[in-house]
């Protein structure tokens, strides 16, 4: 295989994870569960129902809501809570930035892409990209639509049910979200430059978390990709594998 095809080969190794209805249903259900949990946290700090619904639909940032709620719960004011929510959500601007040009889109689709560029949808698009623009577009929208639907329905269900969930950590709900986009990361490890971007980004974010406000470590981790530019976009050489 030639060097230019390395990126494609890396992602293609082992085949394409096409989404089945079962996968999408599971993701929809998982997003619903997270929506219910986040809503009960928001209600716990006295947020009214219409604010919860407006936030989940238009800000569309669960981590932003949790950041807001945790500042309020620890006795902080509204202003620092909103600053915290915006900082935590700032990564969505960068994720939206990585989307244009992956496929041809109309103005309205570009607005919708920018609004719904969550980690899981962007990660699915990256994983599908080597299989062409159509595959990337399909993967992005499948994940974006079913997680958005689940998230908004879950928030509404959470408002209707109140605090019935209890400790969601008991059912492992806190790993559902990161587990859904770990696929793009392990694929990225097959290539030298993206592996550096991943390892630097991940370790910088954890190392900086104790000393910086939430959200800022992830922004600095995003800058790690600048360093990874210096690394060649090649696959790792493995003994016995001829390229």
């Amino acid at each position, binding site marked *: 295989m030639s060097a230019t095809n390395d990126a494609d080969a890396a992602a293609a190794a082992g085949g394409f994870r096409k989404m089945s209805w079962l996968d999408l249903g599971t993701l929809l259900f998982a997003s619903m569960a997270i929506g219910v949990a986040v809503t009960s946290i928001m209600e716990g700090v006295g947020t009214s129902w219409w604010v919860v619904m407006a936030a989940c639909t238009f800000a569309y940032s669960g981590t932003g809501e949790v950041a807001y709620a945790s500042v309020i719960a620890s006795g902080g004011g509204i202003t620092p809570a909103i600053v915290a929510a915006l900082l935590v959500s700032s990564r969505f601007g960068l994720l939206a930035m990585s989307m244009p040009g992956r496929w041809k889109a109309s103005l309205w689709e570009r607005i919708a892409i920018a609004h719904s560029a969550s980690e899981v949808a962007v990660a699915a698009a990256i994983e599908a990209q080597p299989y062409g623009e159509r595959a990337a577009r399909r993967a992005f929208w499948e994940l974006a639509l079913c997680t958005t639907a689940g998230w908004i329905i879950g928030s509404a269900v959470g408002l209707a049910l109140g605090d019935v969930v209890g400790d969601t950590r008991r059912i492992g709900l806190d790993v559902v979200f*990161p587990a859904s986009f770990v696929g793009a990361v*392990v694929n990225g490890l097959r290539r030298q430059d993206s592996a550096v*971007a991943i390892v630097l980004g991940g370790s910088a974010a954890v190392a900086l978390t104790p000393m910086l406000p939430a959200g800022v*470590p992830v922004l600095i981790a995003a800058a790690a990709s600048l360093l990874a530019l210096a690394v060649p976009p090649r696959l790792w050489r493995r003994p016995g594998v001829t390229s």
Partner: protein
Amino acid sequence: MSPLGLALFLGGVFGLRMLGGFALGGLLAGNDRATRLLVLMPLSIVAAVIAVQTFTVKADVVIDARVVGIAVAAVLSWRKVPMGVVVVIAAATTALVRLTGWG
């Protein structure tokens, strides 16, 4: 959240997204290095979000059952197991480890 606060939160996040998707994205389009950067940057961000949600609680570095769940998810994803199965097994693994009383 006051109406003004809500407007700031909604408008702020929406504005950041549109800034990224239009202003900044257009600025970098068409340059080779920039194109590579736009492939690498989301991977850094996604890795950072996974790392933060796996190894930290608020401002502390914490190693607990989540590490086992995400490690299992990583291995399954490497083996190209479908995403729905990965998510369910990761949550179940984390829950089982917690049943043992750790994390």
